[in-house]
């Protein structure tokens, strides 16, 4: 199978500001030798707690985090070797959906303008073609054509996230990075958005890098899971294996900590696996 994304020995370090006049007081290693592969048309979930380095991995793939070491290939092309125009061209193939649709949409731009931005800047599409593509995208994410002329503040959280998804898939990217795309949404809306992502994946053959701390959400959407802890990947494999029969102690701790309606048999007590009703 062809890999859409391959990451080898990725290292990301940040300068710690401090000391006299803000001179560098040291460096902190946020990502420490991470390897990843995403097969075409599949979803890899990168899970971990805050500070585990999962967002830094995403930022490195997007070229917006300082890369201390490692190589990144997108569609067989080495991103880390590209410069200038070729680097910019490669951006159409990887797009991002952020956690907060409210913060990631320009409040002054109409929905159609927001979705048209990548069409204009990455694909240099003309007006007429752009308008048609915007309507097509709105339909794909389940929004009525009348949304085109609205402003973000006239939309609900779920509708805004649909707009953010439409913008992300506008340039027909091979890879979409979703950074906690449903964690600011209510559960009833979250389920709709997860179903939308699955639908878009099967219709458009998209690949997702899905970053999340929510293992329930990950189980619903991921084919493969990589568990990050302190900058390293501690466990990886098919979602069904990692989440049902975790082999690493840290993964077990994470899964055990998820509060769930089904785990509880009486007040405040989570039973062991043996005590679970069939």
């Amino acid at each position, binding site marked *: 199978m062809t890999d859409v994304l391959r990451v080898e020995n990725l290292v990301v370090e940040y300068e710690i500001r401090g000391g006299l006049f803000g001179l560098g007081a040291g460096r902190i290693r946020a990502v420490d030798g991470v390897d990843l592969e995403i097969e075409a048309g599949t979803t890899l979930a990168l899970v971990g707690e805050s500070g585990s380095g999962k967002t830094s991995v995403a930022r490195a793939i997007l070229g917006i985090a300082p890369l201390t070491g490692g190589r990144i290939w997108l569609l067989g092309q080495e991103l880390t070797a590209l410069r200038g125009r070729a680097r910019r061209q490669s951006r159409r193939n990887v797009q991002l959906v952020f956690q907060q649709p409210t913060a990631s949409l320009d409040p002054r731009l109409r929905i159609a303008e927001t979705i048209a931005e990548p069409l204009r800047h990455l694909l240099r599409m003309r007006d007429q073609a752009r308008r048609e593509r915007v309507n097509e995208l709105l339909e794909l994410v389940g929004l009525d054509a009348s949304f085109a002329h609205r402003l973000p503040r006239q939309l609900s959280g779920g509708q805004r996230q649909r707009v953010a998804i439409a913008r992300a898939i506008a340039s027909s990217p091979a890879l979409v990075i979703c950074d906690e795309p449903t964690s600011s949404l209510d559960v009833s809306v979250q389920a709709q958005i997860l179903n939308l992502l699955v639908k878009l994946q099967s219709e458009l053959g998209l690949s997702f890098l899905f970053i999340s701390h929510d293992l329930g959400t990950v189980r*619903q959407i991921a084919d493969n899971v990589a568990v990050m802890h302190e900058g390293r990947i501690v466990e990886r494999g098919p979602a069904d294996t990692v989440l049902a029969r975790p082999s690493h102690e840290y993964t077990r701790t994470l899964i055990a900590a998820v509060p769930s309606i089904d785990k509880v048999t009486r007040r405040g007590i989570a039973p062991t696996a043996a005590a679970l009703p069939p």
Partner: protein
Amino acid sequence: MAASPDAILAARGLSVEVRTPTRWLRVVRDVSLELNRGEITALVGETGSGKTMTALSLIRLLPVGARLTGGTVRLGTDELTSLSEKDLMKTRGSRISMVFQDPLAALNPVRTIGFQITEPMRVHLAVGGREARTRAAALLGELGMPDPFGALRRYPHELSGGMRQRALIAVALSCDPDVLLADEPTTALDVTIQAQILELLRREVDQRGLAVLLVTHDLGVAALVADRVAVMYAGAIVESGPVLDVLRQPNHPYTRGLVGCVPRVDVRLRPLPTLPGGVQGVWEIPSGCRFAPRCPHAIAACRDVEPQLEHVGPGHASACWVFAPADRRAP
């Protein structure tokens, strides 16, 4: 439902309105709640359901532009709604206290943790400085803070999220209150830290006989620590009862839908069950049942007459025409 005599806090018929440019909107309608000693009652609902407004109205801490338009709140033998602001201030922080979602915003950044934990004791209980510090350190130790005396000298920014939330809980428990209102106390925390804080909360409730109102959007959190749960939708309680009865055998179609769409770690469902539409805005509440526009079971009666909470099991009540017991079903 009949008022239980041993409820330490009993609220009846609370209604809250908020000002909009054109009119006052009712965001909480006729909400009744009881908190018992040694029990955690979870108030669950989605964004805009009115759960935070309900909690704030109990201690009349509603934000500017919101007002309490009806209802009574009894704490022990006192009627809080008729207390003067001065007497109410004596109650807040001593007999009822509150823990908020974001400890960094709730703690004062320019005061030490020690100052903030001892302040309520010095103000409400007239405890001297040294005595207060000893008590504060003991409390922090009880809440799992390493080096409690050292922590007293620290500022909020020097602590991790979990430790800050412990400090905030220590502030709330410093005067040994009867009632604790906790608004999404673990939402900003990682799951492993959340598990620690919830365990700690449960332990304090059991040991002190504290009555807790836990406001949360997370049904898993409610299932894990609460004894009873009340489900709010668009400003009203639509179902309430013992936590496992409500979450395992939900009666109201909203609770059924909500429980169904929580993503589970143990099974993959394709597609994930959803509730149609979005959360009802309080400005568009229909006549009849407020959930009817999104309800897959709605019948004609649902759109005409608003259902009231009726018993569907021991201590378990639901406001639904379709799933009510046979004798109370809609005509």
